[in-house]
């Protein structure tokens, strides 16, 4: 696969506020990358820079090895965080209109718009004005608008916000399909657990720069902590581990937090001695639990 999207050392300052502070990232062709970070970390500014709506003070943005220009942007689909379409325009007309703006001819735009309406279960609402549609259906139209021109690069800012579960599943399916076809997708989210179900690759930003990058498993394993979860078939009273600390417990289970470097064996033996063990797992913390550590203290995911 070819190079895909590359952002190198992007800097952007709005007055006193530093929005991007040397941000670099790479989304290879055929990959689906979650772009994570707290509010104000620079996700939207980075995405708007890709779309040409923010002019970075420094840094380069390239697509398949050459600078991302207007011609290349014709192949990009964008779903902004602040959703918006024309309230008094019919669903089909609206999708066709954006298809035309993306450079499709009238008949192709019409054909694709109908395809997406069908795919998103909106065929019977094609002549409804946008303002007559439910919030969830408006989101589907918004997605169709982003997909109408079969983009090679999808920039989705908080794509799951406001989606009902059915639409969210559909969205996952479509996004995966696009990456399998060789497109690349960069989507931002602060719903971290949702990200873990959708993709293996994540980029974490804070204060305008990337603080961690890799597969979600890698990010998790970098944590200095491990969680040992024990479940007994009978109630066990007063289990106190020899190493680590209990973070959660009830009569039949306990979660013990251990340092990753610590040998868990004494604790496991102790648990097995305490009663008949039904299950026993040891894992790094979930991404959402790691988030605060990754982006620095004092920031909310």
């Amino acid at each position, binding site marked *: 696969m070819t190079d895909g999207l590359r952002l190198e050392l992007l800097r952007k300052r709005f007055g006193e506020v530093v929005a991007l502070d040397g941000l670099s990232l790479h989304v290879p062709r055929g990959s689906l990358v979650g772009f994570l970070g707290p509010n104000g970390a620079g996700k939207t500014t980075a995405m708007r820079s890709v779309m040409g709506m923010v002019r970075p003070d420094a840094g380069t943005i390239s697509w398949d090895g050459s600078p991302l220009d207007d011609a290349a942007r*014709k192949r990009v689909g964008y779903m902004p965080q602040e959703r918006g379409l024309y309230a008094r325009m019919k669903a089909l007309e609206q999708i066709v209109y954006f298809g035309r*703006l993306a450079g499709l001819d009238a008949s192709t735009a019409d054909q694709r718009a109908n395809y997406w309406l069908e795919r998103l279960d909106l065929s019977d609402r094609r002549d409804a004005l946008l303002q007559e549609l439910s919030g969830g259906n408006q989101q589907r139209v918004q997605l169709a608008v982003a997909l109408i021109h079969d983009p090679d690069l999808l920039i989705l800012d908080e794509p799951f916000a406001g989606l009902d579960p059915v639409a969210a599943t559909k969205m996952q399916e479509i996004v995966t399909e696009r990456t399998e076809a060789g497109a690349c997708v960069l989507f931002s989210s602060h719903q971290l657990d949702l990200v873990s179900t959708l993709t293996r690759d994540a980029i974490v930003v804070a204060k305008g720069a990337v603080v961690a990058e890799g597969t979600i498993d890698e990010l998790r394993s970098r944590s200095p902590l491990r969680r040992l979860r024990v479940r007994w078939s009978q109630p066990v009273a007063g289990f106190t581990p020899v190493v680590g600390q209990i973070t959660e417990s009830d009569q039949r289970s306990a979660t013990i937090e251990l340092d990753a470097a610590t040998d868990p064996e004494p604790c496991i033996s102790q648990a097995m001695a305490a009663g008949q063990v039904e299950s026993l797992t040891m894992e790094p913390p979930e991404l959402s639990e790691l988030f605060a550590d990754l982006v620095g203290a004092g920031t909310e995911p």
Partner: protein
Amino acid sequence: MIWTIARREIVTRARSKPFIVLTALLFVGVIAIAVLANVLGGDDERRDVRIGLTGDGVESAELLAPGSSSLAPEIVTGAGASTAAVEDGAIDVLFDGTSLSWEGIPDSQIDSFIRETLTSAQFTDRASDLGLDQEDISSLFSPVEIEEVRLDGGDDQFVLRLIAAAASGGATFMLLQIWGTFLMMGVIEEKSSKVIEVLLSHVRPSTLLAGKVLGLGALALLQMAILVLGLFVGLLLASDVEIPTGVWTTAPLVIATFVAGFAFYASLYAAVGSTVSRQEDASSAQIPAMLPLLSGYMIAAFSISNPENPAVVIGSFIPFTAPVLLPFRNAFADLPLWQVGLSLSILVVSSLLMIRLAGWIYRFALLRTGARTTYADMWRNRKSDVIG
């Protein structure tokens, strides 16, 4: 791309109620002006009326039959001259020598025609009874001859010029204001609905702005053309009216000024619209565009009795007021070509500059949401925050 955007503007706007109502009103206005021109233009068609004579009234038949400059009476005598005929409308009035019978309110024109005709006949009769011959009577009636001389050498088509000035200057003002506001509301709608970000993912701000101005401009020009053409057809239909040459040269001038004025004001309205993101802030945001446009109109309104005063003359060369004052002034004064040319040139050049400035403001403010974008803020961040 520009055409795709322009077409959406045209289709959306042409379907909207305000547009349909406005266009219908323009048609009505044009017809009203044409009718007014006909009436004021001194149509010499005489009105057909029917006067029934009965009793002693029959003796007046010969006196009344020739009618007057405005009335062409048909004299009805015999069975047709009855109160019943008045009641069913077969005749307008019945005269029996001493009284006039009407159905409803007396027609003042017929009434005074009959009274004046009979009074002057009686006057002549009594004068001849007193021994005056026909010549004496004529000299008795001859008025003092006073000639009207206009020192400005102007023609006497003031009313027509006034109509042309009001229609061209007034319509330019009205349509620029209405369409400027439409454009501004469209810009604000795109910002407030957040659709702007999706739009900008496909097109440059300047392309978007150009498409909007061209689309709405086409509709505005259509309305202006209806108005101007309708007006001149109306004037042409007014018989016996000699149309002053100034009125004729006004037609192409009005259209040319309107096109340049539209480019100027539409981009200004779009720019001020882009500084706010809520419809509620529209009225305060539009002041920088509305005030200069309105001042041109006010100068015109206060200068009707003296259309060549310095305010109008100077204003017709200033791009903010020229769109209204140039056609206004020209309708009155048959301006020399160099003045029209100079004024139009200034307006066209200013329009090009305004398009650039407005495009810049638009690009700056388009993605700024929340509080109103101030002009000071624009100046501070002029280097960094312009998109596209």
